[in-house]
């Protein structure tokens, strides 16, 4: 069925596809800027974390550029919205690494996306600041230029376990994860760490983050005799529903888990404000109020800088550690490039490997040739959930 008229679409197809690809690559201008790629899930699940981190990143970039840039070179921030989609994240990572030829990549925020992009960015040899907590994202051999800024999942979970077992003196743990990459991995890690501490969980479940009715699962946990619930999920909606289910059931069991369980968005989701009582989460010394009611000075400084830029007219209604972490990533990049005297990836790798005690707002970081997790144990703390004020919390009683 040879039709001359079919030749036309075929040629046009090839031509158009070629043009489209040519446009996608963009024209490579000779520039002297420092290009930083930022893979952020600004829409989709975990968007609240990404948006907050973005605040910090933007602030740091603007600050550094206003002061003349790094070594006279301005930072060009290329933000890419991955929407929580691993395929998109991979495409965008490829674009940043090969098309835009960025010098640094921050993110992605989502562990699920991170699992997909980290190998690719590693293959491209681009230095990558990891802000997902899942353990598999770090490997000094496989991903030599990936350095983690956020705490590890193990740090979150052992802090929580420590509080639940040693301070609250509970022994029958129900582990609640979700079906995302992060949730699945965390539930496994939680089980392992508990068993290492000599405690076997009485009930474990992975929930779909969009599941609306959790009474079944809680009833089963109760029937198994659980005396503490430990949720390791970053899905605030799910955690809100968990708190509601606990409250509606009238079950007076403490909850110790992921920092998202104290996120301010949860207040609106609760059926009754009392449902937030008896809830604790792993947090950070850097975003905890001292006994004198004051934040650590570095944190307070950043809070004062961020406050005027917030759309909500000065009130900080997001978890501040997200902002602080975002801010720190850019400062780390500044430190690395300054110390390496340029953007050569191998030199940057060397610099970061030998970085000890780099003071940030969120934490003080140390990496080495064998250790790519830079967050110190000493910065971990446990917070009380409904003590949110201006992005930080009160310390949980010991």
């Amino acid at each position: 069925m040879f039709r001359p008229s079919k030749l036309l679409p075929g040629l046009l197809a090839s031509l158009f596809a070629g043009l489209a690809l040519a446009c996608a690559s963009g024209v490579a201008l000779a520039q002297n800027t420092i290009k930083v790629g930022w893979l952020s899930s600004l829409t989709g699940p975990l968007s609240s974390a990404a948006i907050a981190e973005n605040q910090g990143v933007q602030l740091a970039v603007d600050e550094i550029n206003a002061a003349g840039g790094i070594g006279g070179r301005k930072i060009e921030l290329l933000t890419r919205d991955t929407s929580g989609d691993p395929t998109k994240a991979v495409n965008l990572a490829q674009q940043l690494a090969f098309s835009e030829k960025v010098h640094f990549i921050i993110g992605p925020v989502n562990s699920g996306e991170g699992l997909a992009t980290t190998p690719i960015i590693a293959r491209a040899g681009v230095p990558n600041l990891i802000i997902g907590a899942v353990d598999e994202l770090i490997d000094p051999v496989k991903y030599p230029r990936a350095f983690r800024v956020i705490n590890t999942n193990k740090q979150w979970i052992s802090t929580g376990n420590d509080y639940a077992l040693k301070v609250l003196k509970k022994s029958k743990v129900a582990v609640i994860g979700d079906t995302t990459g992060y949730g699945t991995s965390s539930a496994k890690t939680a089980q392992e760490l508990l068993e290492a501490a000599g405690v076997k969980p009485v009930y474990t479940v992975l929930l779909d983050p969009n599941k609306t009715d959790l009474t079944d699962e809680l009833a089963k946990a109760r029937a198994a005799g659980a005396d503490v619930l430990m949720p390791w999920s970053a899905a605030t909606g799910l955690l809100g529903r968990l708190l509601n289910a606990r409250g509606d059931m009238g079950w007076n069991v403490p909850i110790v888990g992921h920092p998202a369980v104290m996120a301010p968005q949860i207040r609106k989701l609760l059926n009754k404000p009392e449902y937030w009582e008896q809830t604790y989460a792993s947090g950070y010394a850097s975003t905890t109020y001292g006994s004198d009611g004051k934040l650590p000075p570095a944190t307070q400084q950043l809070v004062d800088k961020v406050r005027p830029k917030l759309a909500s007219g000065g009130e900080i209604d997001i978890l501040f550690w997200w902002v602080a972490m975002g801010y720190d990533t850019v400062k780390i990049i500044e430190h690395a490039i300054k110390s390496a005297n340029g953007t050569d990836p191998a030199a940057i790798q060397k610099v970061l490997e030998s970085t000890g005690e780099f003071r940030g707002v969120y934490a003080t970081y140390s990496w080495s040739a064998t250790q790519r997790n830079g967050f110190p144990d000493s910065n971990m703390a446990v917070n009380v959930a409904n003590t949110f004020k201006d992005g930080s919390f009160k310390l949980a009683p010991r």
Partner: protein
Amino acid sequence: MWMVIVSGLAIGALFAATALSYNVMYSTSKVLSVTTGHIAMLGGVFGAYAITALGQPWWLGLIAAIVVGGLFGWLTDVIAIRRVLARSDEHLWLLSTLALATMVQQAVGLWWGTEPKPFPRLIPQDFSAGIADQKFWLPIALAGVMALGLEFFYRRTMYGKLFLAMSEDAFAARARGVSTDRIRVASYVIAGALGGLAGFAAGQLTFAYFALGLTLTLNGFIALAVGGLGSNLGALIGGLTLGLLNTFASYLFGGEYQQTIAVGLLMVVLLVRPEGLLGAQQIRPV
């Protein structure tokens, strides 16, 4: 155990209401619209929006849900059905309703957000009410009222009888002077209004969630296929059965295989009795 039964009946009632919407639209157009589940989703989302975001009283939220639902039903007809029915290609309406459904779901996702947002309490009631909670009884009551209402409509009102006439033989109806186009539009608006109402009633159970559309389209369809296309009683039975099956399976085996179980039911019924439990036998056309 009671909780499992009651929640199963409640979600089943929503499935049944969706199946009833399918029936109403099918009766006058012989079209199964992919947008059917999205009507209820819109009812829930707009009801929640009106009450929580705009601060309106519950009855205004109710009206908003019905109006939005009816409007969307009308839109379905105008955009996806009217022009397409005239063409002889019977696949086209499947494509056009699929396209419209996708657009609506994505638009709501972009505007409302992709997380399930809580639906406000309609009647003051303590949250620890357990199985007597209104989030269960509202949808059940509504599905019952809907089914009874439709029966009354078809058997006792003139308009309803016109619907029946059209569903049996549209050509003959037109030959008798019935304005089949207007009846079809009316049926879509009615189906939309009912669907929006159902979504509003079940809002506290499902939350205001953009992805509910496709889920309901599929589950409502399974309820319809099990009960039998064209039968309202079948829609009720099919919906409640599916709801109970879902909650029991969830309770016994965990919620990981919800879709699998629902489709398993569908497959079993289709293999044994393809026209559903109470459906009419289809005569082969040549």
